């Protein structure tokens, strides 16, 4: 009886295909993708109601902006140089923005804690010490600039630039964009004033939030481009089903 069960378990393990991405990584990847796109669209809509950015605590149409975006506005009193006003979309944009922010934050917390405890970050994202030498980095950059298709082995692992880019996005850009978002909340900063004071003021937080958005959009564009370069169908299939073509030495 005991033996039979042991045999059964071994057989089950052998049947389980080796997965490129764990279920948790796949689910959180697509949840964050959906939340990010919703945040991007709704965030840009909100910017349309005041396409001016300031530095410091305060700013309004009576004060000098740090910069303006040359687009029409959805508000009458914003001087844009355009002779027309766009329809107000802030209601649903704001509802969607905050709801998506909750999806993003809760998913990111799940991914982050799971990644710390199950070794995902250490195993899959932390580059080998030998790989972060200037020589290796330069050669990896050159390979990328030549748009060289990755080797079959790279379908099962990330290269050093990829690892550094993912670490930058996961541990720096996303925490910063969440922080700068919270720093704009009048209620949140009433409880945690340091969140906005450290950034130099509420309008500074808004401006930083805007720049961080473009940093993440840039990552998204490069990320999707690299997926195309290395085989769109196989890479997207791996992120949906978890399965990828086995490299030769594994077969």
């Amino acid at each position, binding site marked *: 009886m005991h033996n039979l069960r042991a045999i059964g378990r071994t057989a089950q393990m052998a049947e389980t295909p080796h997965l490129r991405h764990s279920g948790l990584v796949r689910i959180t990847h697509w949840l964050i993708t959906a939340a990010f796109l919703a945040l991007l669209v709704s965030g840009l809509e909100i910017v349309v109601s005041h396409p001016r950015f300031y530095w410091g605590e305060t700013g309004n149409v009576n004060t000098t902006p740090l910069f303006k975006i040359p687009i029409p506005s959805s508000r009458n009193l914003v001087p844009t140089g355009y002779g027309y006003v766009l329809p107000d979309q802030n209601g649903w944009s704001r509802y969607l923005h905050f*709801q998506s922010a909750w999806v993003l934050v809760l998913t990111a917390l799940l991914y982050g804690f799971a990644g710390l405890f199950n070794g995902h970050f250490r195993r899959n994202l932390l580059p080998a010490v030998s790989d972060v030498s200037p020589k290796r980095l330069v050669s990896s950059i050159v390979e990328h600039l030549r748009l060289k298709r990755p080797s079959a082995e790279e379908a099962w692992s990330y290269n050093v630039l990829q690892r550094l880019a993912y670490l930058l996005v996961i541990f720096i850009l996303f925490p910063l964009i969440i922080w700068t978002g919270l720093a704009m909340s009048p209620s949140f900063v009433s409880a945690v004033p340091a969140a906005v004071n450290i950034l130099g003021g*509420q309008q500074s937080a808004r401006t930083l939030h805007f720049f961080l958005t473009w940093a993440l959009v840039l990552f998204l564009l490069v990320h999707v481009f690299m997926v195309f370069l290395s085989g769109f169908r196989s890479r997207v299939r791996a992120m949906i089903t978890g399965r990828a073509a086995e490299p030769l030495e594994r077969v």
Partner: protein
Amino acid sequence: MIKLSRRKLLTTGIATAAGASGLVVAAKLAKRYGLIPPDSGGIYGPGETLTYAAQRLLTRHSLAREFSRSQISAKPFANEVAPLGDEFERHKQKAFAGWRLAVDGLVARPASFSLAELKSFPRSSHITMIQCEEGWSYIAEWTGVPLSHVLERVGALPQVRYVVYRSFQPDWWESIDMADALHPQTLLTYEINGGELPVGFGGPLRMRISRQLGYKSLKYVTQLTLTDNIRKFGKGLGSAEPEGGYAWYAGA
């Protein structure tokens, strides 16, 4: 073929049951402790409820940041206001001598106060930032009578859960929960930066909610109604804002 071992089935079942009953308990507790906003229905309800509940748990008694006098904005911005009409113009010509604030609903002593009476009550000031949902802001010193003082004066009944406030502008009304109604920075303001509150900024009387976006700081306040049932007002969403597509709770 999907293989489900008995153990897996059992643990999944227990986890699902625990999760479901956890959600039910959380919903009951949230309702009991007033953590559900009036506009919690609809597709954006979950996000709104999470924001409101989280901020009521974490920031119920916190004070909005106060600034030094030197940080007061030299150029504040009075947002666009729809034409206020002839009746308002007549009030203005008489320096708002006939302006009244009616207080009714669940109160022991319904009352109506003139501006002079409101100004004779204890006054309070704070230098705080007002932020518009659009993204702009300014810092000003606001002076007025704490709303809590007015509520005390009329004898607010213990079952009151919301204060509904109306503007001279028809169809403009707002409401706040008791955490904001009794908050020390919540003022019925009649002065800005040491001078009379101009009409553009909401004069003669503006509600100032320090920890929420500007649209909760309703201009031209004429009436307060204390209630235990916010659903009775308008479409039952808590204020005119959700009826126009904006969130009731603007702590963001």
